[in-house]
């Protein structure tokens, strides 16, 4: 049986960050990375840009072969884990790889809604590079596209399709788009801009059933009406795939449950990134905080723990955050909305200029930052994230922070972590 001291399953941000952290502490022991993909590592976040043609599919790889050989890493594409037992994983081809330390960084996979007729329809998802290439290839000749789901992937894809000249309809079951990151006011600005670019957005809407129509589909809405599309993209969300862990003893809920060092319930098995369900900074229960910077953080913590790096500091908890650029506009969402907090001591500061597509909301809990959200508002997301994580007391500078969050936060940053 093949043996590797460190074995990392998955090859995206969490995996690469873990690898980096391991090699900072342990330059020698063997590392094997296995991924079911057939390419060098890439990020799911870049895929909408591969579809639009902005990113060349040959130039999106996060590391090259030279990097892996320099880091003495055995990088093995086209390898998928079927099951896990103590000290070894079994691949779908029947072979086994033994490990001392294992990281599960397998990410998430699209969740398909249970719409009658969907299995008979040709549809696209967007999670792998092959998905992106297939979608890109399907584009020529498409006049009308239907996107199910107004989350980040759906909205990115809708924008790219519209830019390519396709008539796009987005169907979102919540009352506004991007419900995970923005409130109704902010979403209204985003929806308005999409509408101006010819994208039709149906919120509070559900597809009740669909039927094949060549390469496309017919979709019947719950409240009546039928949509006709040459292309259907299902972007209703992703979830960790954990069924290969059945019988392994690794505890799962919606994702793989981990402690503050990303260790699972099984000795010498860690999990990080979109597959992991870890402490939430604001939530009482463990959350899946499926975002890129958090995957990097979790990966680093897992890597340090695996290598026994004494500099390890425990995970502070996942803070929801994201950046979103669309049609030349910039949006950022750092932290939680007021609704996610308790009743007491919560203060919300709003600035809305829908005309000029400007929006800013600051949520304070006591004198500490809980969330800051903007469309075309200047602040440094990374600095704000630190203010939240460090629970910086803004009491003394509250007025200037509300008036000029970027400058005030930069001054605090420069003084505090000089």
């Amino acid at each position: 049986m093949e043996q590797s001291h460190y074995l990392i399953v998955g090859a995206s941000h969490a995996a690469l960050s873990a690898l980096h952290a391991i090699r900072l502490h342990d330059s020698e022991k063997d590392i094997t990375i296995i991924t079911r993909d057939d390419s060098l590592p890439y990020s799911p976040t870049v895929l909408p840009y591969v579809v639009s043609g902005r990113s060349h599919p040959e130039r999106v790889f996060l590391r090259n072969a030279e990097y892996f050989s320099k880091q003495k890493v055995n990088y093995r594409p086209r390898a998928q884990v079927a099951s896990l037992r103590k000290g070894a994983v079994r691949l779908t081809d029947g072979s086994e790889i033994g490990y001392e330390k294992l990281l599960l960084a397998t990410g998430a996979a699209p969740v398909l809604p249970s719409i009658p007729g969907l299995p008979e329809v040709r549809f696209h998802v967007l999670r792998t590079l092959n998905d992106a290439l297939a979608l890109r290839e399907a584009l020529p000749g498409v006049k009308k596209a239907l996107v199910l789901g107004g989350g980040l992937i759906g909205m990115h894809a809708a924008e790219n399709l519209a830019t390519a000249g396709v008539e796009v309809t987005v169907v979102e079951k919540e009352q506004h788009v991007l419900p995970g990151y923005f409130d109704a006011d902010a979403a209204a600005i985003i929806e308005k801009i999409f509408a101006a670019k010819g994208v039709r957005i149906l919120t509070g809407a559900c597809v009740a059933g669909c039927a094949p129509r060549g390469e496309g589909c017919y979709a019947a809405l719950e409240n009546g009406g039928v949509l006709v599309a040459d292309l259907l993209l299902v972007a209703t969300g992703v979830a960790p795939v954990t069924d290969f862990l059945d019988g392994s003893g690794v505890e799962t809920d919606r994702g793989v449950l981990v402690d503050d060092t990303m260790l699972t319930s099984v000795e010498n098995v860690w999990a990080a990134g979109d597959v992991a369900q870890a402490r939430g900074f604001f939530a009482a229960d463990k959350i899946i905080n499926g975002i890129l910077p958090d995957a990097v953080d979790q990966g680093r913590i897992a890597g340090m723990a695996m290598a026994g790096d004494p500099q390890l500091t425990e995970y502070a908890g996942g803070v929801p955050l994201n950046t979103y650029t669309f049609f030349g506009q910039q949006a950022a969402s750092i932290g939680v909305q007021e609704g996610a907090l308790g009743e007491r001591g919560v203060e919300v500061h709003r600035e809305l200029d829908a005309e000029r597509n400007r929006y800013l909301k600051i949520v304070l809990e006591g004198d500490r930052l809980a969330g800051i959200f903007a469309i075309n508002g200047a602040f440094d997301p990374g600095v704000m994230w630190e203010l939240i994580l460090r629970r910086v007391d803004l009491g003394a500078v509250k007025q200037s922070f509300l008036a000029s969050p970027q400058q005030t936060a930069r001054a605090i940053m420069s003084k505090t972590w000089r």
Partner: protein
Amino acid sequence: MGVAFETIAFQNELCDGCNECMTACARAKAQSDDFVHSRIQIVAADGGHELAMCRQCGDPECVLDCPAAALAKDEVTGVIEWDDTKCVNCLMCTVGCAYGGIVYDAGAGHVIKCDLCEGDPACVKACSRGALKHITSSRIYNEVGDLEDLFVPGLAGCQGCNSELVMRHTLRRIGPEAVLATPPGCVPGMGSVGYNGLTGTKVPVFHPLLTNTASMLTGVRRYYKRMGRDVMAVALAGDGGTADVGFQSLSGAAERGEEILYICIDNEGYMNTGMQRSGCTPYGAWTSTTPVGERSRGKTQDAKNLPLLMMMHRCEYVATASTAFMQDLYGKLDRAIQASKQGFAYLHIYSPCTTGWRFPSDQNIEVARKAVETNFVLLWEYDPRSGLRLTRNADAPLPLTDYMKVLGKFRHVSQEQIDHIERSVAENLRFIKGLAAGVPAVIAAAGRA
């Protein structure tokens, strides 16, 4: 061995908020006067000024956060480079940066960040207050970092002592083709001569008497030369062994032009034997033999200017140096090594003594820096062809008390004593400047045949 990188340092207490750095950056990078395009951002806060700028992190989060492989740390320059042909404008990098160092510029339509202007930063040149400095000492590390350290690990110096730094750096540069003499003092005391029959160096080392270091090295160098081998004869000696007890043999060797590199580590006294005064102890300083009591107020004589004495031997090379100015020190070390192949080279390195001078052990380099910045110590070099020249401008010194107030050995001094020291420092500066202005001609006229 890894690679070290150049960086821009910001001293906020020197910044007066003139914003010239931002203007210079916006002009250099965006041909605009609008600060919004500046990669360096000065933020006014609480009457002071703070900085938001790319730190060119050693382990950059922005790079790990980029989904498009558009950011990468250059392995040679250390600059985090942004590739516009790969960037997709997702702004994930701005989430990864806790320093406000990579930001979206709406005018440009993409993120902007500092790129150190290809090693010649416009902001630093525009800063008239010295608040921004382009730190290039990484060049030393990259140049000598791979050279073998010729001392054993674990030399037992006092906490915070910079002698170990001097020893390791100098011998590393000198290389293995050398014989080292370490007369009684801190250098052998911290273990360079070794224990239990094993030496503390990877080159031959010996422990001469205080009196005969230069004589013994004379023989060593001449012997190897006769054998046809170019082996350097090097001394790492203290100021006591150099200025006082060992001066006779030193002066003789210098006068004869022996091919020796003699490095004096000057901590202004016999520090490892109980902090007695030496000829290099400055006026007013406490030592165990110049005590402070009801009548005695420290040393009553000025220090002798040993490097000047050596210059008057018309050595092949003489220089003073400080561990707070390593690039300067390295340049002089290189010239001293070269000179020692033709004649006598003398390098005088000031070495603040945490134990004997009584200051906190984390302040050594800062004390060394203040000594130079107040002109208490002058950095200069000399060779018989070009004469003496100051290697660091001494025209705008800090107040002398900035240096003295840190040191326990001067804690008792009266105003009269401070006045005396200030007069000595001023006189010394005048003298050195006079030599710098006049010596080339004088020395050239009187130059040895």
